[in-house]
């Protein structure tokens, strides 16, 4: 299958996985492997001044030859904090990629569209390839594209909710008008949600909790990978038109007794 291209980056899998909430690091690594993903998201946090010396650092676990690291600005509530986080990630040697999240409030974790737009504009000016997380809102998606986002990532449903694709109609409008890749991010609970997003024509899907909190994360990761590929193929194949009434697939003529 064709790799996904975002600005000057190419991804051999259209499934992006997170690195949070797994039962343990070994399970996470096996899940990534099983899913076929080639890009994983990470977060930035203050070094724990008391514990860092004993813990294995995430950077030591990730095979950088296999996985592109996409650092996020999760937990940022202002454009300024998101900018600082993105610059720190770049300083960590993670390159120009950033998954930009500017969250509006703790309870819904929904994105702040205006602040996301402002931060996108500034980060694009600084040379970042901005993957902008946003609502499933065609206007917000268009504005982020105009602000210089390399990819726009509308949510399927709120972060960590596992409710799937709540507004396929809006997603279809976003996809029809997009001039940059569109990745559905957040809300994916199970494999069919990935397939739905890809069948709608999404360029990729990013998810974390749907795999990490599955009872068997490795099997679920494989299911997500297969669904991503199945959905992509179905989109490329072009589905048959829907119709209200039945249409037989066996001939009406030549039936016995007629």
């Amino acid at each position: 299958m064709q790799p996904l291209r975002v600005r000057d980056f190419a991804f051999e899998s259209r499934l992006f996985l997170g690195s949070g909430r797994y039962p343990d690091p070994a399970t996470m690594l096996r899940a990534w492997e099983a899913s076929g993903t080639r890009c994983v998201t990470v977060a930035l946090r203050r070094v724990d001044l008391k514990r860092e010396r004993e813990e294995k650092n995430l950077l030591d676990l990730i095979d950088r030859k296999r996985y592109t690291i996409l650092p996020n600005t999760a937990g940022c509530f202002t454009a300024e904090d998101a900018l600082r986080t993105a610059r720190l990630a770049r300083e960590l040697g993670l390159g120009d990629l950033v998954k930009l999240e500017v969250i509006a409030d703790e309870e819904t974790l929904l994105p702040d569209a205006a602040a996301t737009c402002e931060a996108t504009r500034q980060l694009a000016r600084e040379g970042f390839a901005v993957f902008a997380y946003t609502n499933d809102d065609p206007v917000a998606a268009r504005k982020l594209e105009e602000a210089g986002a390399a990819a726009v990532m509308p949510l399927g449903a709120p972060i960590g909710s596992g409710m799937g694709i709540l507004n396929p109609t809006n997603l279809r409008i976003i996809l029809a008008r997009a001039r940059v890749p569109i990745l559905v991010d957040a809300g994916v609970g199970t494999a069919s949600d990935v397939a739905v997003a890809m069948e709608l024509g999404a360029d990729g899907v990013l998810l974390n909790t749907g795999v990490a909190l599955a009872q068997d994360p490795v099997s679920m990761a494989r299911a997500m990978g297969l669904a991503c590929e199945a959905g992509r193929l179905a989109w490329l194949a072009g589905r048959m038109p829907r119709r209200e009434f039945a249409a037989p697939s066996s001939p009406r003529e030549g039936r016995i007794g007629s």
Partner: protein
Amino acid sequence: MRVRLNGEATEVERGTTVGMLVDRTVPDRARVAVERNGAIVPRAEYDRSPVVEGDDLEIVTLVGGG
């Protein structure tokens, strides 16, 4: 002298550099990034960046996230 390190008031000796502060905090410089008073301190400049009274320092690393 007093500085803030990752939000906590911290006592450091006069003459401390950013590099010394990083080395006593983490085992490997390559795993962290440093910000001082809102601006990035590039790794190459750690050892020639003195910490001064009242500095607000952040030392961050990667953790799991989505």
